[in-house]
């Protein structure tokens, strides 16, 4: 079983990295990009025997306690069997 976690800065928080990438894309001539947000993608391999509901609760707990700083970041995840 695999959990995929997507972490990004909250929309109200300035993302200096995203801004720099946005500028880079413009410099390369890519037009039509209104905004860039750079985040993190975390993959967890989980015990296959774990019930999916329990896995969801655990992953959420992991996000809240360590993987995400909820002062500045928000997250989403999906679990695949």
């Amino acid at each position, binding site marked *: 079983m695999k959990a995929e976690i997507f972490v990004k*800065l909250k929309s*109200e*928080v*300035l993302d*200096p*990295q995203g801004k*720099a990438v946005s500028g880079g894309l413009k410099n390369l001539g890519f037009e039509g990009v209104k905004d860039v947000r750079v985040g993190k993608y975390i993959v967890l391999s989980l015990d296959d025997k774990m019930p999916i509901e329990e896995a969801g609760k655990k992953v959420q707990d992991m996000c809240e306690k*360590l*993987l995400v*700083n909820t*002062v*500045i970041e928000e997250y989403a995840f999906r679990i695949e069997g």
Partner: protein
Amino acid sequence: MFAIVVFPGSNCDHDCYHAVKHVIGRPARFLWHKETVIDKDIKCVVLPGGFSHGDYLRAGALARFSPIIKAVTDFAKDGGFVVGICNGFQILLESGLLPGAMLRNRALKFICKDVFVRAANVKKTPFTATYTEGRVIRLPIAHAEGNYYADAGTIDELKTHNQIIFNYCDKDGNISDEANPNGALLNIAGISNKQGNVLGMMPHPERASEEILGNSDGRALFQSIAQHIEGA
């Protein structure tokens, strides 16, 4: 007695030890991050700068789970004095001992240079009690994530309780965007908790504590807290 916590990746631990032990001449010892007890004779804990646990995930995020942090949290709750410098400040934020978080510097660069900071609310915390209000001091910074952020409600709280202790400024004390090295909200360089016994700051007072190194503006910070402890 001062205790300087050593994490894997700390690199200002010896500078802090030197500033306390040899520059201001007070007793100091190291505390390894796996230790779980802060002895009764320890009155001030220093979380030094560096790259604890490689700064993996986020600066300070993994150090927060070092066993000593639980002890430091209890120590702070009981009124013990804690100062976090640079990475130590990041650890205090990640542990929730201070509010807010650090973003990457707005120019995305690691900044290593001397900056000016203005001391405010100096009586809020014994770490700055001997600084005069509004005094401008020169201190070095060296960080990639020092862009202080907190939501509007938290910033209001900090203002209401006089918790903003250092702001980046120019040499004349003007707090302006030009004098802001990293994009920190309100030019914040250092804050304390509501009680005033926990201080976090990005500049390095331990690197500016003796004339022979060209700058002693940071020495008063260690002296202030030492005098406060001895007077208590």
